[in-house]
């Protein structure tokens, strides 16, 4: 699908990080702007970061107009992606429910539904009578500690095959001449007179006047090499899957109050996750506390799953910005660009990030769609607060 090629001593564009974001940017640079002298460098194999570890939820029912507009463009690109990449990415728009168990949560869902609809996104509040039809498996009784009062229903939301997205972008970028270099770790960023000149790697120096940091959880380590500190803090996010079951759940279910979400994969496994670990770390170890806490909450929603066994669990790194919105675009170092701050929610944004960052690189201007996510928003106190829509429902 993609090839090992010799590492040249210079490229027009070097993209650090071979996740879905870095590879999507390479794909759109080559496809839409004819920029093909591009290298994607990854210290490990492509998709070894968050892009191969996420729970693949795609949706656009965010909280701010800026966020909703942006993620909705991504959903639209995902709808066409299998055709564009000639690769089945198994995008299943099966519907997405965010449950509300308190008056406060119902108010937040109502607000999200209104903001979503103003942006033309299919999203509305539903109550237990309708929920009983959308997801009859849920315990809608008064028995749980926190009975379900309502839910935000987002029919176009769903899940996708994350590896296929990574491989599809890699395949197409490679076909157009992009070099993908795995096992190539960036160890330094060469900045002189405020301009980026290239990167040091485990395989030698590579010159480039445009360098994109798309390393997600490791974003601060690359920024530090360029002399920058960023408003992100890295924390592990864990997930797990059960043994395969007969298909019974055809909607994604999220509960912010219970800190849990569940979907059923096409193999029949229940894919489940929660919020980030309670302390920051670059460790990708799994913990028993996590599955214990999660299992208790899943059983509040679906008591009949009590005999189902967990098959495996894992963790990935998430770089959390204070407002739960990304950092995209220019930095004080000329030519050194950012596409980080993807926290626990960035996989769904891969295509639109690739597209907008490619446009930014090719035209040297910030597309309107990502202007709200510029790094300078923090010093301008112009944050884009998405915590209410992104802290559990990734």
């Amino acid at each position, binding site marked *: 699908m993609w090839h090992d090629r010799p590492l040249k001593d210079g490229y027009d564009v070097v993209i650090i990080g071979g996740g879905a974001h870095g590879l999507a940017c390479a794909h759109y640079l080559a496809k839409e702007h004819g920029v093909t002298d591009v290298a994607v460098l990854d210290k490990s194999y492509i998709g070894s970061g968050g892009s191969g570890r996420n729970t693949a939820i795609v949706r656009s029912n965010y909280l701010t107009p800026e966020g909703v507009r942006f993620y909705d463009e991504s959903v639209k690109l995902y709808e066409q992606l299998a055709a564009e990449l000639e690769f089945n990415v198994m995008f299943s728009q099966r519907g997405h429910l965010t449950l509300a168990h308190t008056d406060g949560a119902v108010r937040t869902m109502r607000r999200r539904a209104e903001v979503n609809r103003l942006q033309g996104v299919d999203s509305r509040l539903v109550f237990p009578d309708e929920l009983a039809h959308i997801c009859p498996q849920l315990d809608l009784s008064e028995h749980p500690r926190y009975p379900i009062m309502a839910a935000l229903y987002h029919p176009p939301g769903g899940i996708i095959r994350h590896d296929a997205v990574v491989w599809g972008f890699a395949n197409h970028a490679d076909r157009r001449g992009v070099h993908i270099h795995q096992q190539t770790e960036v160890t330094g960023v060469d900045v002189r007179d405020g301009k980026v000149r290239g990167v040091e790697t485990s395989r030698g120096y590579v010159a480039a006047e445009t360098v994109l940091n798309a390393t997600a959880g490791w974003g601060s380590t690359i920024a530090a090499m360029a002399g920058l500190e960023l408003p*992100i*803090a890295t924390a592990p996010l864990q997930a797990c899957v059960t043994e395969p079951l007969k298909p019974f759940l055809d909607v994604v279910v999220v509960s912010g109050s219970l800190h849990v979400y569940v979907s059923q994969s096409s193999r029949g496994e229940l894919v489940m996750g929660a919020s980030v670990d*309670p*302390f920051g770390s*670059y460790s990708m170890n799994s913990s028993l506390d996590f599955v214990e806490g999660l299992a208790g909450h899943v059983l509040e929603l679906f008591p009949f799953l009590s005999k189902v066994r967990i098959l495996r669990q894992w963790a990935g790194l998430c770089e959390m910005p204070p407002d739960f919105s990304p950092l995209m675009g220019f930095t004080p170092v000329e030519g050194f660009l950012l596409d980080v701050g993807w926290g626990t929610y960035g996989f769904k944004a891969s295509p639109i990030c690739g597209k907008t960052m490619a446009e930014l690189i090719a035209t040297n201007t910030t597309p309107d769609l990502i202007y709200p996510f510029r790094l300078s928003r*923090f010093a301008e106190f112009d944050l884009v607060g998405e915590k209410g829509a992104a802290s559990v429902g990734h």
Partner: protein
Amino acid sequence: MLVVPCPNCGPRNASEFRYAGEYRPRPHPSQDVTDDEWATYLYTRSNTLGVHTEWWFHTSGCGLWFLAERHTKTNAFVKSYLWGAT
């Protein structure tokens, strides 16, 4: 489970504590602090891969706020102490 060294109570399970993020020195409020300095204090983090200094709060224990130095990859603690004591 991670075991956190409380300067008061000794080693206790992390579930008794609240992690409160990387330590950043706060600009003195009575000084003339620029927007940039406030934004840097509030939002910017060194997010070090290695040993850094962080805040912990012993919520379900003695109620102490304290600082600890911990390696952010191995999670091994180097030491913990009260603010100002180093």
